[in-house]
């Protein structure tokens, strides 16, 4: 067996913090693109926050959208480049808080884009503020005594919100352990296959550790995902049906 990271994502050193899940997801995208022969064709739209750090370290043609709006921008890119795969890549703060309107309406319109949302439970780049996906009681810089759900509402669960919509693919993966990383790669590949069939809006949410902002060692942070976060955010495929577009 020979394994080598695709050159499209490994030619430069990333500037992510030690233990950040973005690096793993970027490699999975690179591997899937290599297997499908789409490395030269993929157009990506990334968000302003941590996901924008990819622009120097992957070779795909990239647009940086306004904060929270990569999915809306990707919809536009897809409309003029119909033969290219288009990926919107963003974090949970952007997708579920700042850009919730764009995320919801892209799903309601069943726009033909692949969306990958990195869910780490905090706003990463700005210093670990509370995000819609922060767990009840989770300590962040804006909830130093733990998230009070009676004031700030329940954690945002994309499966509950979008689980009944008429979209072809919705899955939640994780990069916290070996088995989940391999399953997540299958989810990403399936989303791109459906995308190339023009089936519609494919969303893959990926649980990812953020050791810097949670103040934990990387290994402890990924164990927290396996032990605590997955109790609320189960991984798996939630919608997998023939698209109508």
């Amino acid at each position: 067996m020979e394994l080598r990271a695709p050159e499209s994502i490994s030619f430069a050193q990333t500037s992510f913090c030690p233990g950040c899940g973005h690096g793993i997801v970027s490699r999975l995208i690179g591997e899937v693109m290599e297997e499908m022969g789409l490395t030269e064709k993929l157009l990506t739209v990334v968000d302003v926050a941590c996901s924008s750090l990819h622009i120097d370290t992957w070779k795909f043609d990239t647009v940086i959208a306004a904060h929270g709006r990569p999915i809306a921008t990707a919809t536009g890119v897809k409309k003029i480049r119909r033969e290219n795969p288009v990926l919107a890549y963003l974090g949970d703060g952007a997708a579920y808080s700042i850009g919730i309107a764009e995320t919801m309406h892209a799903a309601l319109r069943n726009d033909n884009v692949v969306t990958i949302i990195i869910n780490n439970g905090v706003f990463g780049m700005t210093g670990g503020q509370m995000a819609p996906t922060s767990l009840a009681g989770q300590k962040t810089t804006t909830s130093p005594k733990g998230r009070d759900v009676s004031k700030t509402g329940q954690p945002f669960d994309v499966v509950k919100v979008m689980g009944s919509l008429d979209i072809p693919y919705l899955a939640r993966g994780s990069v916290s352990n070996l088995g989940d990383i391999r399953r997540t790669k299958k989810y990403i590949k399936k989303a791109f296959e459906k995308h190339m069939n023009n089936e519609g809006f494919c969303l893959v949410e990926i649980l990812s550790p953020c050791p810097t902002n949670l103040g934990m060692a990387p290994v402890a942070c990924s164990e927290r995902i396996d032990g605590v976060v997955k109790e609320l955010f189960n991984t798996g495929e939630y919608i997998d049906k023939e698209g109508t577009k």
Partner: protein
Amino acid sequence: MATAIKNTAKAKTNPEKCKGCYYCIKACPKDAISIMDIVNKKGYSPTQVDEEKCIGCGACYTVCPDTVYTIE
């Protein structure tokens, strides 16, 4: 007579890329990965692979966020 297929693939590291998250140490099924005594240019202690123990399974490659490992 059946002969065992000898797996000659081994994990190779690129210590300069390592950021010291040590996911690989947790993922390695053979405990073949350990921390080196040196620090790299970025100030992290990189990992090293014991080739005697390595079976080339690719677990370290899969969990590494910084593409430190190649299996060859």
